[in-house]
């Protein structure tokens, strides 16, 4: 297997989070801590990015210039390749004796089927089966690499540290940046720079390998959050400017902000933590049963297992569905959903789809109104908009699963 993450070799020297490092007033303490700018902060500003606070950092919502703006950036990504800075996300590395069993006690994942070089979607659940975060888990040699949401990473570290035995080491790879290169031309552009034991084209969806880009060691996973083919590149923070500049010099590549990242993931029907799921929602309501691996559905043994297994058997009172909305007026998070005069749900994400030229939304609705094709109404500023329960993704996924 051509993987050999260099990060593993520097493990002993990395900052480690242990129980006694976490003060009792962990949450309050954090609010007082100003976060350092992300590695590409100046790089974004130099490209005319409009920076907004997000997950405790300043992040680019869109860029200036003729190719900037959310819709232009969105369309560019669907047609070419977009470079997203997602360095706010948490990159964690777990290692130690009995690692798989320890992690399976915390996550509803089946690690016996996660092979070296593979990545899988998983969920961090509370004892009631509510969603604390969604995350990616990758099998590194003698370690598991996790990518968690930026806004939740500090809580996740606390939750994991608390739940995992003391002899499991949790490293926060906070000197690593994370870039996503997404779009139908991403593979062509990245292949010109990624050198590895195998060509980049050997990577298929949800697989990763070690490569070098311009002499820097990086880990490249074929994955993303746009529905397009694409890659997520974990790299040393010190190399972030070099590599971002190098990739954006390719004719297919433009930098893309958080605004288009949100409209792209919405078209792809992908949930956003804190909006589409939270501790108040279960993964079964959210249609994320694939995040509960098959063996775990029968065996249980993870936080919230009783509720999850019961909901799999009996169904849930509400379900997360896609809505196509008539007209041009977008329905956004918090808009209420009606069947006749009955209030039957709430929009959790919504906006205008640049690809479809129409408003789309995701909502929790009462399960009896969740069938594809059901006619509903969404209320926006006192007006009722006609909406139809629709299949997701709204725009088909184009992942590369092998030729």
């Amino acid at each position: 297997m051509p993987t050999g993450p260099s990060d593993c070799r520097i493990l002993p020297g990395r900052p480690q989070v242990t129980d006694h490092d976490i003060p009792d007033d962990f949450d309050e303490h954090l609010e007082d801590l100003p976060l350092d700018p992300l590695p590409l902060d100046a790089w974004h500003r130099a490209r005319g990015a409009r920076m907004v606070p997000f997950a405790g950092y300043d992040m680019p919502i869109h860029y200036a210039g003729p190719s900037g703006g959310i819709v232009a950036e969105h369309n560019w990504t669907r047609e070419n390749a977009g470079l997203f800075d997602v360095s706010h996300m948490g990159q964690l590395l777990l290692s130690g004796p009995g690692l798989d069993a320890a992690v399976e006690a915390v996550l509803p994942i089946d690690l016996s089927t996660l092979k070296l070089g593979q990545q899988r979607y998983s969920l961090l659940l509370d004892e009631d089966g509510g969603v604390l975060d969604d995350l990616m888990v990758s099998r590194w040699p003698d370690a598991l690499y996790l990518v968690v949401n930026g806004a939740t990473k500090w809580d996740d570290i606390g939750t994991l540290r608390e739940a995992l035995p003391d002899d499991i080491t949790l490293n926060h790879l906070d000197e690593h940046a994370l870039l996503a290169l997404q779009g139908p031309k991403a593979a062509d552009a990245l292949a010109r720079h990624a050198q590895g034991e195998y060509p980049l084209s050997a990577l298929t969806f949800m697989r990763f390998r070690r490569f070098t880009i311009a002499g820097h060691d990086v880990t490249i996973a074929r994955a993303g959050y746009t529905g397009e083919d694409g890659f997520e590149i974990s790299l040393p923070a010190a190399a972030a400017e070099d590599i971002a500049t190098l990739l954006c010099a390719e004719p297919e590549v433009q930098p893309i902000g958080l605004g288009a990242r949100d409209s792209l993931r919405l078209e792809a029907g992908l949930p956003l933590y804190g909006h589409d799921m939270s501790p108040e929602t279960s993964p079964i309501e959210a249609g994320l049963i694939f995040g509960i691996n098959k063996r775990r559905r029968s065996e249980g043994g993870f936080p919230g297992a009783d509720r999850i297994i019961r909901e799999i058997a009996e169904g849930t009172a509400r379900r997360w569905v896609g809505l196509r909305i008539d007209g041009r007026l977008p329905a956004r998070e918090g808009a209420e959903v009606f069947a006749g005069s009955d209030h039957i749900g709430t929009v959790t994400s919504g906006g205008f789809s640049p690809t479809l030229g129409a408003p789309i939304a995701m909502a929790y609705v009462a399960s009896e109104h969740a069938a594809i094709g059901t006619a509903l109404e969404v209320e926006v500023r006192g007006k009722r908009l006609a909406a139809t329960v629709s299949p997701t993704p709204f725009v088909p996924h184009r992942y590369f699963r092998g030729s």
Partner: protein
Amino acid sequence: MTRYFTDEHEWIDVEDGIATVGITEYAQGQLGDIVFVELPETGALIEQGKDAAVVESVKAASDVYAPITGEITEVNPALEDDPALVNSAPEDDGWFFKMTIADEGELDGLMDEDGYKAFVEAL
């Protein structure tokens, strides 16, 4: 014709006792790609500072306030089919609505072009 500006980034052209209202170039740049404009009803009487219209961009909904008190006499029909006019021609073809001027004195509190320019530069 005299053009006035508000600190909410609206412009107001006054001609023959009627005010034409739109949002400024600066405002459209801040809002980003506009996908829908909800305009007031013709005949509605709106007080200065109250909600008059809503601009939906890809990322968010933003209120547009009546810059003065008056009655809506006309709304821009072109915005229904082509809301992106607000991005491409905010201070011209992308106007929002026309209204009567109930109190000429309200215009005195608004900025002129130079004043608005200085206001934006200070932001």
